[in-house]
């Protein structure tokens, strides 16, 4: 226990001693995560809408997403190397592929979880299919979709460490080279900052979510 604490402290000291490098690695990491996540969301959400609307397309879309998720992230990163070479682009593509599934699954689940009575009412009141989607289904599914985005983002922060293997940069530089050199303070410095980054992004998204999802107080029914 004492060893862990002293190593953590030495990790923080390492970080403070190498602050300029830290900021650069953090920026690289953040750009990789944010860019791949944004593209993943902008593909997965429409794909989820299509899948939820067309029963026939649902299982092929989901199986593609599932396969992407079952391949280990390290393998995806490695597979990108012969196709796209080294650097930012292959890392970005690998992370994007890996971030798709949680968003896709939650989009489909969210859209399908909307109460059929509600949809029936919307239909009976004369909403077109698009109006039902944009005014009813999507807003009601938003909390679940957002949960998927948060999961995906947190996983993405972790996966992005592997980008270092194909020259994508990021905090993986400290962790992986630290392991190779058995430089534990360096490993800790990279790991702790990544954990803090994941938690911060999660909290940030939660804040955005509570702003967006104007679904009222989540408190239970109040009888009057």
């Amino acid at each position, binding site marked *: 226990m004492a060893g862990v604490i002293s190593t953590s402290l030495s990790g923080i000291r390492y970080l403070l001693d190498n602050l300029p490098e830290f900021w650069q690695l953090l920026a690289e990491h953040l750009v990789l995560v944010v860019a791949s996540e944004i593209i993943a969301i902008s593909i997965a959400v429409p794909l989820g809408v299509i899948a939820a609307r067309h029963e026939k397309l649902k299982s092929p879309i989901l199986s593609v997403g599932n396969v992407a998720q079952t391949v280990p992230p390290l393998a995806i990163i490695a597979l990108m190397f012969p196709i796209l070479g080294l650097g930012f682009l292959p890392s970005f593509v690998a992370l994007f592929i890996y971030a798709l599934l949680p968003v896709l699954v939650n989009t489909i689940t969210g859209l399908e979880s909307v109460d059929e009575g509600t949809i029936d009412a919307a239909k009976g009141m004369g909403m077109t299919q698009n109006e039902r989607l944009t005014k009813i289904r999507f807003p009601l599914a938003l909390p679940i979709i957002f949960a998927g985005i948060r999961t995906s983002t947190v996983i993405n922060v972790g996966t992005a460490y592997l980008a270092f293997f194909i020259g994508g940069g990021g905090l993986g530089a400290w962790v992986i080279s630290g392991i190779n050199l058995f430089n534990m303070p360096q490993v800790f410095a990279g790991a702790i900052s990544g954990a803090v980054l994941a938690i911060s992004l999660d909290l940030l998204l939660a804040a955005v979510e509570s702003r967006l999802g104007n679904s009222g*107080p989540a408190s239970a029914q109040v009888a009057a």
Partner: protein
Amino acid sequence: MIEFEDVTKVYADGTEAIDGINFTVEEGTTTVLVGPSGCGKTTSMKLVNRLEEPTEGTVYVNGTDNQELDKIDLRRGIGYVIQEIGLFDHLTVGENIATVPELVGWDQSRIDDRVDELLELMDLSPEYRDQYPRELSGGQRQRIGVARALAADPDILLMDEPFGALDPITRENLQDEFLQIQDRINTTILFVTHSIDEALKMGDRIAIFDVGEVVQYDTPAEILSNPKNEFVENFIGENQTFKQLSITPVREVMDDPQAYESAESEVAPAADGGEYYSISPDSSLQVGLTRLLSIEHTTLPVVDGGEVVGFLTEDHVRSYFDSAGEP
């Protein structure tokens, strides 16, 4: 006005939901479709706003074959209330009520006025406007559901078991309130329920369904006194005469005030004895009888707008009871 002409509905899997039904809902009246579950009553209702399409036959809405109307426009012109209420939980009460007016593009001030008006009609205070449906009780939610259906002033209102999910007391209250609202709006209403008591209470006319067919289409009084066959008789159940009392207004059996001028001592005091010892001509005979039994007099004055318009006696109720008991 809604007309069903030889309407048959067969689902894709071959089940026949309704088989050649015919009936007309006159403008401004309420017709209740009643029957056991799976009898096709909800399907029939959904044929009106084209949530279902007929296999054969025609449904006329205000004289036009509804197949010739645009589905979306048709639905926006028809109020729709369902059992699960189907309120939009992510929208406030005000936004829920404003749904159809917004779809058809009313301007904001007109929508605001309409929402206020409907909250008042539903006896809900204006503070509910900015609350979310989940914060309300079942009865309040149901009121919002009705208000939302009435928002764009539809000629036709479809109600599918609107009070089904409520406790008996709330249901009873909402039924009474809705009957009053019904008097104030000139809307043609098609009402679906599985409860014959609700049907007798709410309907100007009742269509009794049995597996895909309308077995009897009549006024509540006619159905009670002349059930067409055994199915209808069984469906009405016990206590037919007592049910009849609950749908007959006092007005129909009371005597003229002149007839009792000589026998004033028998009359329960109307003016100085408090309002309790009188009855409105629109109350049911069931209420009248209960009140007669609870006072010491044998004659009850019928008071409308502060004036005595007639008298009700136990003999009236008895003779009505006797005549209603005979088929």
